[in-house]
């Protein structure tokens, strides 16, 4: 048996993805309606944002466009979790019905095999919204645009994505231990709504909690500071890529541990 490296998994993923997209095209109505639903969600998010902040020139020292920047940043950083890890939402049903067992018999990484099954194209619409918002805010704030800035932006967007992916993995994996894990996943999902506010609005105690206990601030706030406020970047922002990788690794271990512990219900 040959060693299964990154190249092997990338090739398999691309093949599954290509097949998946092909078969999705046969559900055109579903695709269109889901896309419209996604657009609705984003528009409603913008409308809420606009209604809320149109009356106030700034909040807690954050200008309207800086808030918008954070918002766009969080939308982009949520795209990978939406596109690549959407099968996490079905996990509890597979575990509950016992169908999860079917993933356990393949000679490849279980986590990879499970997640590879679903690619959610709808997330790409959100990505478009996010990029549009970010560019708009970027121009309005008058931030400089250099290749280095772009590089920083990409690195820290990936960081933020890793954190959200990690949170969702861990939340989804809870179904291996508790029966009705929907609420856990839903809770993690709601984090995305809180991610778009600057952490400075909280008192120190809650700043600590949202940084170290429930690391919501890493989904947008800390990583985006590197670009948004380059003069005063806290240490935590620079550390966030490492933290992101660590979180992802831990969540992956939890997920795998749960899956191994899992014994299947019924026959």
């Amino acid at each position: 048996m040959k060693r299964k490296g990154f190249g092997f998994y990338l090739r398999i993923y691309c093949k599954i993805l290509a097949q998946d997209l092909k078969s999705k095209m046969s559900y055109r109505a579903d695709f269109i309606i889901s896309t419209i639903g996604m657009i609705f969600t984003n528009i409603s998010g913008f409308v809420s944002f606009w209604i809320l902040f149109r009356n106030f020139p700034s909040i807690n020292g954050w200008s309207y466009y800086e808030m918008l920047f954070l918002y766009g940043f969080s939308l982009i950083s949520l795209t990978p979790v939406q596109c690549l890890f959407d099968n996490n939402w079905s996990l509890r049903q597979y575990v509950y019905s016992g169908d999860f067992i079917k993933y356990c018999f393949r000679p490849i990484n279980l986590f990879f095999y499970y997640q590879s099954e679903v690619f959610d194209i709808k997330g790409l619409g959100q990505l478009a919204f996010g990029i549009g918002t970010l560019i708009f805010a970027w121009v309005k704030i008058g931030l400089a645009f250099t290749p280095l800035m772009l590089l920083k932006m990409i690195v820290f967007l990936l960081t933020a994505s890793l954190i959200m992916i990690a949170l969702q993995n861990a939340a989804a994996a809870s179904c291996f231990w508790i029966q009705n894990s929907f609420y856990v996943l839903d809770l993690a999902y709601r984090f995305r709504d809180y991610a778009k506010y600057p952490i400075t609005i909280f008192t120190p105690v809650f700043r600590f909690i949202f940084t170290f206990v429930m690391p919501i601030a890493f989904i947008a706030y800390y990583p985006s500071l590197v670009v948004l406020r380059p003069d005063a970047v806290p240490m935590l922002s620079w550390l966030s890529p490492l933290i992101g990788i660590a979180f992802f690794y831990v969540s992956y271990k939890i997920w795998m541990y749960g899956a191994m512990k899992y014994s299947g219900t019924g026959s």
Partner: protein
Amino acid sequence: MSAIIEIKNVTKEFKVLKRREGLKGSLKDLFSRNYKIVRAVDNISMQIAQGEIVGYLGPNGAGKSTTIKMMTGVLEPTSGEILVGGNVPYKNRTRNAQEIGVVFGQRSQLWWALPLIESFRLLKDIYQIPDADYEEMLKLYQSLVDIEPLLHKPVRQMSLGQRTLSDILAAFLHNPKIVFLDEPTIGLDVSMKAKIRTLIHALNKEKKTTVILTTHDMGDVDALCQRIVIIDKGKMLYDNDIAHLKRFFGSYRTLKIRVDGDLKQEAENIQKELPDNSVSADDEWISVLVDEEKASVMDVLGCLQKKYKIRDMQLEEISSEEVIKKIYEEGVQ
């Protein structure tokens, strides 16, 4: 022949929540919970040689699936040792997976939305099957079953029979040393069952694949297995070939008679008169199981003739179905 599967003193225990009943019980469960330990598999040992087809039998909840899950590496035994092709399954799950194929009940492992051929291509990549072997396997499949119409059909549009057939083909695709089939013929019609049995038999002959088969259908056992293993309540009851088992019940004969009136009703009456014999009825016959060491068939027949007008009769050796039923009910003395 050396053993490809070795199981030594394997036990598996589960912790199960005991729920209380009713509204009050549910409220109590909210605050304190009781657990009990259930021993699903209890000190089982066996050896299986390369190329064997073994029927793994037992009533529902006997521990069959648990054993299979342990052999496939999904479950870790509480105690005891399992070696599958030289691997400890739960420690090397992925390496073990390369060497085995699994068809688990009615749960298709194929990609739901994809045509079968695309699933095969993905499996070829996942199992890293060389091109030549893959082509050879497809040719073999073509010679055994008519797969052309299946290849381009998405799995979700297949009938249960076609899906099971596809799952079995997918399980053999990477030419594994061992294939586990968990109730492969459940819910299928007679002709599909026959088709699937022929297929399994041919693949076993052709590729020397070891097959472990669990089923409730004695037709599967008669058509495929030389050897059967029976477990119940986690304990091993029997492990030997099926002919031996029938010899064990060699003094048993089945007396089949036909009388006037409703057969089911009459069978109940006869059962009352012959409390030591097991009596059952189908659409055509009333069957009476007779142990000739206790009373001869002639005695029973004589006794029945006094009360009933017997229109027709047959005498048969005990069937596998009845043997298994007797073992489930009474165990092996």
